[in-house]
């Protein structure tokens, strides 16, 4: 709690900024949903033919998982505030449309009949009878939409729209509880605050409607536009980076220092959405992984790390020493793959999954068969061990390969726990015996898991062999975790651009990029 307090104090500027962005995203999308949703709901009450399809469509939108909806937005609207607001707007639509529809429909027939019989016009009936009577139900819909939107708006950090989700996702990536709380607590308070304000507004609707609604709307629109405009602001050259990179010791800050990189406008976004954003020209450079299959598939170019800023990221399986000692047959089976996969091979395998849309298990099987291994997986009952993996495609492929090898060359049954988000989460699962092994990268081991100081890191000179030995020793001592033999490929962080743009600008190395940015 004290940590959280310190964190909040020292980051108050950013928290405030994110909160304002969050309010902006939520409020603009909500306002749009109210302005469009209520008339749509009314339309549905007036035309029976409209109501079925309309409620169906808004209902289906609601069932799309939020991250998927953001993914759909990407090719259409790119990144930033606009797609976030559109997605939030779509989510807010269902409760508002549906509650308007049912609120109006629930008004007693006899009351409407009496109103017509007394000579009220359609507009007067709507304004004086139907809307006031449906108002509690409509307000309930708006309040539901608000709470949903405050929650979903956290996800918008993944497409560079900012908001409190920034802290939450960085926190998850780094397993930093304080950072997660610094995003989650204000978000929860915002939801409560919005709900309270709307509740008050509802109770005093008739009295407040005119004076306050205009004032409040004006103020909030102003704040919203102000805060979102900063995200909307177009710059010529933009960088996209995943939340984890922005916070890591071997991440953004170090990169700026090593290359004397000025302030590049940076958009924080989900690692898996980043490549599409680059391909579609929404950003111009991203920090990705050098083996990602989309580099090949989207015709992207990895910039050469000419100052050797990024440490070597040799990939090797890690497991508990105790487990390795008690399961020599497993270690043997795993080591069958040692040195067998170089970087181009891994990139090509990734590309088969990412671009050719092949199944990870099939890609793994194809490779192993070519190498002459047995690949039958005959799982029955509870697995004897579990293999973990992070979100990157190659982690899926490798995990399947290890599963096939262990199943065929030992008597153990192997299960998989894949797609775990973030290094800390997978690693903690390993130390807690929730999984027994996963493929890790030496550079990550050095900077994230061992938290190596700069002097020590420098002394290793980014020499792959030295780094491997260092992390193996260090982690044995600190965690009782052992590194097995490297697979042969490296998956380093890499600055990636569109090949055509890089060639047009004559950029081959990170230094070229720095030069270009300085003399732009």
């Amino acid at each position, binding site marked *: 709690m004290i940590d959280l307090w310190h964190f909040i104090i020292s980051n108050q500027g950013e928290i405030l900024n994110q909160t304002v962005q969050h309010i902006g995203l939520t409020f603009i999308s909500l306002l749009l949903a109210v302005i469009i949703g209520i008339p749509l709901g009314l339309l549905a009450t007036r035309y029976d033919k409209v109501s079925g399809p309309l409620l169906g469509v808004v209902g289906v939108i609601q069932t799309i998982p939020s991250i998927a909806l953001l993914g759909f937005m990407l090719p259409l609207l790119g990144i930033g505030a606009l797609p976030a607001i559109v997605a939030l707007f779509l989510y807010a639509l269902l409760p508002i449309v549906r509650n308007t529809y049912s609120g109006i429909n629930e008004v007693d027939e*006899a*009351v*409407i009949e*009496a*109103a017509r*019989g007394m*000579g009220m016009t359609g507009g007067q009936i709507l304004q004086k*009878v139907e809307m006031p009577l449906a108002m509690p139900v409509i307000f309930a819909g708006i309040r539901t939409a608000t709470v949903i939107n405050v929650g979903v708006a956290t996800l918008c950090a993944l497409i560079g729209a900012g908001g409190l989700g920034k802290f939450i996702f960085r926190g998850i990536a780094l397993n930093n509880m304080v950072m997660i709380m610094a995003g989650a607590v204000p978000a929860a308070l915002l939801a409560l605050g919005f709900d309270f304000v709307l509740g008050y507004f509802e109770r005093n609707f008739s009295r407040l409607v005119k004076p306050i609604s205009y004032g409040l709307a004006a103020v909030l629109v102003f704040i919203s536009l102000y805060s979102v405009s900063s995200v909307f602001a177009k710059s010529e050259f933009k960088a996209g980076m995943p939340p984890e990179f922005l916070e890591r010791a071997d991440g953004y800050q170090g990169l700026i220092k090593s290359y004397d990189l000025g302030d590049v406008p940076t958009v924080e976004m989900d690692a898996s959405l980043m490549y599409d954003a680059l391909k579609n020209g929404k950003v111009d450079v991203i920090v990705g992984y050098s083996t990602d299959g989309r580099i090949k598939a989207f015709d992207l170019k990895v910039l050469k790390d000419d100052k050797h800023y990024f440490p070597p990221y040799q990939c090797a399986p890690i497991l508990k020493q105790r487990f390795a000692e008690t399961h020599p047959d497993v270690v043997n089976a795993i080591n069958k793959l040692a040195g067998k996969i170089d970087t181009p091979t891994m990139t090509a395998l990734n590309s088969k999954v990412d671009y050719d849309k092949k199944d990870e298990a099939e890609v793994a099987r194809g490779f192993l068969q070519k190498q002459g291994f047995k690949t039958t997986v005959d799982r029955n009952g509870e697995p004897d061990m579990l293999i973990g993996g992070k979100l990157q495609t190659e982690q899926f492929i490798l995990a399947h390969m290890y599963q096939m090898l262990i199943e065929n060359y030992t008597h153990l049954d192997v299960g998989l726990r894949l797609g775990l988000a973030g290094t800390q989460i997978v690693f903690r699962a390993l130390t807690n015996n929730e999984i027994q092994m996963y493929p890790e990268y030496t550079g990550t081991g050095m900077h994230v898991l061992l938290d190596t100081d700069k002097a020590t890191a420098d002394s290793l000179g980014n020499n792959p062999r030295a780094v491997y030995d260092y992390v193996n020793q260090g982690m044995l001592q600190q965690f009782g975790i052992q590194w097995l033999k490297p697979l042969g490929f490296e998956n380093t962080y890499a600055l990636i651009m569109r090949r055509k743009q890089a060639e047009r600008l004559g950029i081959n190395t990170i230094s070229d990029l720095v030069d270009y940015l300085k003399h732009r």
Partner: protein
Amino acid sequence: MITLNNVTKVFGDTTAVDGISFHVEDGELFGLIGTSGCGKTTTLRMINRLIEPTSGTISIDGRETTAQRSEILRRQIGYVIQNVGLFPHYSVQQNIATVPRLLNWDERRIQSRSEEMLQLVGLDPNTFAERPPASLSGGQQQRVGLARALAADPPILLMDEPFGALDPITKQQVRSEVSQMLKQIHKTIVLVTHDVFEAFEMCDRLCLLNRGEIQQIGMPKELLFQPANDFVESFFASNRFQVELLSVTLADILKSEQGKTELYWSPPLEEENGEEIRKEESLYAILYKLEKAANDNPVIIKRVDGQVRESLGFSALLNRFQQYKLQIKSGGHRD
């Protein structure tokens, strides 16, 4: 005067109202009766254009109702429905003020008119004006509904089963009070009901509908004693005796005498000065009074020019009633 001329209403493939024509005279209480689905409510709702006729014309005081916007028309016609339809978000007073507000009356006039209307329907303005409709009993709500319909003093009042949602005891009470009140205010009223007693008790003339067609129009006793067809005859069969008593007045069964006839009802036979009875009262009401009397042999005393001529008990009244019926059926003179 309301005039329907060859009015037809078709919904899809069903003809709800089939070429009907009638006049409603000023100040008359005109009843539309018939079984459910006979077209009576449709007919009523065509008068204030809640339903537009498929063909035919409806005029009020010689002017076709389609000559003005339907909302404007409806503001000049009071409308009372079975489920009342009070606005739950308005107070009683605001409910009553609805049409005056639509007509842009000034606030003070609206205020005084609302109070006047509440008094008219027998509700104390101080107690009821600010209450929400939900806090009122069914009978009170119906009275407020009536007050609301009359607030802008429309010359015409349309009532669709106005007592249909009330329990039998409340219904009887509200109905007789409303009947009394309607007689004072002199409106042209069209009442839809499926309740034969209600129709006979309240209406000056009746229009019996079946399957969208008029079977007979006339005074209640004409429908009873000179039915136009078998349907009219059979419509009243199940409670014939009761409605006959309702439709026949004392004046009908007592031969007219020269001079001034006075009627008194007198529980103790000896007493000469009882309560005076109006000759227009129905035989049903008279028998009901006699039946309630405390003594063995209650009678009505008939005096002509101050002289006691007759004293009439149950059997004498029923005898005369029987003679009167025979007389009418044989087409003989009646008075």
